[in-house]
């Protein structure tokens, strides 16, 4: 079970929004890179986000480039999980691979600041502020296993290969 507050984002947040190409030269310096997280989409994000917050996005979150740095800088900024109406394919795998939970559910009625409880095993998010329960789209077992290990490298360390 993960708990955190909702930090609302818009639809179609691309990996160029999360970490733009103009900071390409900082990709091997993640703490520096993370200082620029989401600055084009939400200039005060870095100051406002609190450790453990859930990013609550609309549709097609994380579209675009395969840069895993996008998921990494969100994790480094303290984001505890991501709820989105839909998630772009590569970002989805990237986040799970670094142990950052991403779930797909109807996020329309979640408001900024709502208290959220995420239960991956039961497949639900409870919005404690609104008193609602959101059901999650099914997550493939292999992704749940990767998340349970804390990411893909620890998963491979444990199983030696893909255990599907």
């Amino acid at each position: 079970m993960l708990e955190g507050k909702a930090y609302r984002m818009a639809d179609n947040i691309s990996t160029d929004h999360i970490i733009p190409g103009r900071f390409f030269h900082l990709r091997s310096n993640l703490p520096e890179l993370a200082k620029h997280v989401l600055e084009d989409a939400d200039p005060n994000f870095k100051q406002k986000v609190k450790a453990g917050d859930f990013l609550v996005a609309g549709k097609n979150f994380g579209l675009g480039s395969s840069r895993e740095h996008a998921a990494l800088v969100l994790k480094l900024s303290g984001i505890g999980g991501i709820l989105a109406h839909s998630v772009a394919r590569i970002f989805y795998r990237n986040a799970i691979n670094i142990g950052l939970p991403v779930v797909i559910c109807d996020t329309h009625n979640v408001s900024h600041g709502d208290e959220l409880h995420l239960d991956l095993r039961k497949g639900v998010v409870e919005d404690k502020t609104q008193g609602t329960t959101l059901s999650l789209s099914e997550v493939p077992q292999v992704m749940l296993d990767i998340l349970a290990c804390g990411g893909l490298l620890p998963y491979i360390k444990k199983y030696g290969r893909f255990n599907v």
Partner: protein
Amino acid sequence: MGKTLAEKILSLKSGLDAVAGRIVVAQVDLVFLQDGTGPLSIRQFEKEFKKVFDPQRVALFIDHASPSPRKELSGDHIFLRHFARKQDCRLYDVGEGVCHQLVAEELAGPGNVILGADSHTSTAGGLGAFACGMGSTDIAVALALGETWLRVPQSFKVELEGRLGKGVYTKDLALHLIGKIGADGATYKALEFGGDMASDMDISSRLTLANMCVETGAKAGLFPSDEVTREFLRSQGRENCFIPVSPDADAVYEHMIKVNVSKLEPTVSLPHAVDTASPIEEVKGMRVDQVCIGTCTNGRLPDLEVAATILKGRKCHPHTRLLITPASRRIFQEALGLGLLQIFMEAGAVILPPGCASCVGVHQGILGDGEVCLSTANRNFQGRMGNPSSFIYLGSPASAAAAAVKGEIADPREFL
């Protein structure tokens, strides 16, 4: 029950009955990475692994920031070169070209499963490969194990009929299709192309279309292999890589999309989303500060030839910069041999070294505040070309050349 092309290739590579929806572990024919995503892949790899699964099936590319504009990136390049030497695998260094073009020229074949640490890896689907972009950690594990897990995608069948009109190209079709499907309309799916027009398409056009499939959210874009594919591979001295791959006649598709391409007009996508495809007529007259022709989408010889047809004997508008980037060294040399570069120079263009140029916003043509660019690239997200206060339109090489001459978005048919 018949199989789609995606199901067939993944059945072959997993040894299982890979029906859509099933999770399989597939053997991988090629794993590659580039200078933006590669250093992280290698750092992840080195945490757990020592040797790549097969040095012959691994390739590294320095194309995104190439030549390096910053010392930090020069350091990343050194790191990649060192890894390639240590692992005895191929590295394509500064000036050799964009990874997806070099993969198509030298490494990919029909029926392959290809993983690249770059979203436009789908490009090799133009040759009949199941080619899929992934992030650094997935690629790190694929480098070590030579396999990956995949959910076998449902496929959309895209049936292409008719013939493109004068001044209308595959890029216009690609933008039109993305507009129709939407930026997330094919998420987790494969797009499979068929129909008479697809069979008639040359490899350059197939690569353009497969390249842009990812802009619908798709996992892969696929063409069957045929005599056109075989001839392309023969011209590269790789005919031995040819195998016929095609979907079964009774394959089951989630969705059928039919396009009669005869009706298409020159098309552009508007800032800041690719799925905003509009007839060029609607944005004619928009001032353009910079025009870019190149990238993994449209930096091939036929693209440069079309641009040269328009630019021959003409000059760029005095307020408009024209940057041209052949996608690979081979294309650069062919364009040189055909006199295209001379035409571009006389028109006032800047010729850049083969690579990604300004497409990722790292170097070689960062836009200024409020500036407008017409690019033949595949993405126009806010900030994509290095400045969130600039505006990117996407179009064909012909539309780009026309804009360079007129200094504004213009119908290329005026010049043909």
